[in-house]
């Protein structure tokens, strides 16, 4: 019993010490302008957005301190990070990806939350409508023009069936797959899907459907994009074109075309929104921003892949492309 008392005393005093230390830290945080950024995992797309936010705010002349937090892929940690931001009383909390944004929205009542890289904020329960923000919450959606992308591929190569490999564990990917299924139904294309739970399964999933498809569509699915080389390898072996929604990853792999936005630019757009809020704009009045502005969108076409597959791009696509891969070289316009 004596031991228990000693241990409980030690234990409680450690907790008390931590409170005191943190309480003194809190005061500091109120004065220094801290922007808290919580991302679910370290990943090229998410890191690029995080960097874009900071660069944009720096270019606009703000001098914020950043508390960059990362849940290491553990959704359960997202709530801990939200609590941390709450106790630090950060000026604005930014949630990169759906679960981190949800955890922030749930824990922070008086702090403005800006979400980014959330595909469907209404489906994720963050806001009630696309036309306006919620109380103390608004942000940027990374909804990608799924239907336009599929139509694009269909114009280059007439599709009877389209394959789609996506991650069943990513809310964004599941939503985009739903949209792709819908788009294919409207266009009369057979939609053949394969799901993966991690990036190691991408190759096998592609092999499983490759003989039944005329083309493969890759959305902004973090897991699949991580293993894009495995997917394009199988596709090239079987002479199947791949259309991707992520131009940055498409630069180094054999993707026929990639049409979408750059995550770094998306971070910049998010940064601009944060600046607007700092300058007094009300989050309720800022609708969710979609990356539809032509300057936000990049089109990458790979002429080498087209040649190998015996396909040709219509001239207007070549003219509107901002990045062209030809003879192994990347040309930017």
């Amino acid at each position: 019993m004596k031991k228990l008392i000693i241990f409980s005393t030690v234990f409680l005093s450690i907790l008390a010490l931590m409170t005191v230390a943190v309480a003194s830290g809190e005061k500091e945080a109120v004065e220094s302008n801290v922007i808290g950024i919580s991302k679910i995992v370290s990943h090229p797309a998410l890191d690029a957005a995080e960097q874009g936010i900071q660069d944009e705010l720096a270019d606009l002349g703000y001098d914020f301190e950043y508390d960059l937090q990362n849940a290491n892929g553990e959704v359960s940690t997202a709530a801990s990070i939200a609590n941390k931001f709450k106790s630090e009383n950060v000026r604005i909390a930014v949630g990169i990806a759906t679960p981190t944004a949800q955890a922030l929205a749930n824990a922070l009542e008086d702090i403005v939350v800006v979400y980014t890289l959330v595909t469907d904020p209404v489906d994720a329960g963050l806001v009630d409508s696309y036309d306006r923000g919620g109380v103390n919450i608004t942000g940027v959606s990374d909804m990608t023009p799924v239907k336009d992308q599929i139509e694009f591929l269909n114009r280059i190569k007439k599709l009877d069936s389209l394959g789609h490999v996506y991650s069943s564990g990513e809310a964004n990917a599941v939503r985009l797959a739903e949209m792709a299924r819908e788009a294919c139904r409207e266009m009369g294309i057979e939609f053949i899907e394969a799901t993966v739970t991690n990036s190691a399964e991408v190759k096998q999933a592609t092999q499983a459907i490759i003989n039944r498809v005329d083309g493969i569509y890759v959305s902004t699915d973090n897991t699949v994009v991580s293993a894009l080389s495995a997917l394009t390898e199988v596709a090239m072996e079987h002479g199947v074109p791949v259309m991707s929604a992520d131009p940055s990853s498409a630069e180094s792999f054999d993707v026929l075309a990639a049409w979408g936005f750059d995550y770094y630019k998306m971070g910049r757009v998010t940064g601009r929104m944060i600046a607007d809020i700092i300058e007094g704009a009300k989050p309720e009045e800022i609708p969710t921003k979609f990356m539809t502005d032509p300057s936000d969108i990049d089109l990458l076409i790979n002429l080498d892949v087209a040649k190998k597959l015996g396909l040709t791009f219509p001239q207007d696509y070549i003219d509107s492309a901002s990045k062209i891969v030809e003879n192994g070289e990347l040309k930017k316009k």
Partner: protein
Amino acid sequence: MIEGILVEGLIYGIMVLGVFITFRILDFPDLTVDGSFPLGAAIIAILITRGYNVWLAMFIALSGGILSGVVTAVIHNKLKIPSLLAGILTMTMLYSINIRVLGNRANLPLLRQETILTRVTALWSGFLPSEYATLLFFIIVLVIIWTLFMLFFHTDLGLTLGALGNNEQMVITQGVNPETLKIIGVGIANGLVAVSGAFTAQYQGFADIGLGQGIIISGLASVMIGEFLIKSNRIGLLAIRAILGSILFKGIMYAGRYYGYYINLTPNDLKLITGILIILSLVLTKFRNIGMKKRMLS
């Protein structure tokens, strides 16, 4: 801040009790946890969104957890495969089941839904700020669970269960079937884990298929830290130290996030810290035990 650590520590403490039952009492290393934790979250989220009573939903989450534990134990018993493998099998199968439960989605929000926590904070809003209302609620929940835990392990069944991990042969000579005991024990453990997952979903405002990531390791770390804190063989104290271990583990992780940058620690390093922490607790506990034996001998 401190109430955040305590609340999280208590919620995960329920899961740690489950991990403690399997790893320590039953000596049945069980990895079902990474699947039954999000199962609890998925069940509560879908039922709340569909408008079911939250307490009924909690009960169903508990049952779902128990069922997944039973499946693991049955696989282990009937196919004679190691408990680790049986747990991994169930955990893997649960991934698909959890997506089904969530309605073929990876993530289901509970924001702006009425949960147990919103009810509790609304009920006590007159005299307690919401953070402390949540804390008080979880203290009460943990006291209830702890009491039930104590009572159970003082019944004949509970005592036999306690003996199983130490000496399976003794249990057999007593005429008890160890297979049945494993089914009951692993079932209860995963029931607790699912309840913990269900509370987590309500606390953080959503259920996500990735919620199970890293749960078992944080549970183990908490058990080990608890063992380092208090030395005892009384079941009540063992349960308390598991819960204290959970709180302290959360505290250490918070500290890592808060002060890590002083020593150039980034959030990416926290997994390394978790591992080192477990090893450290094991080493320290071991050395202390050796020290005690020496004193007893001399």
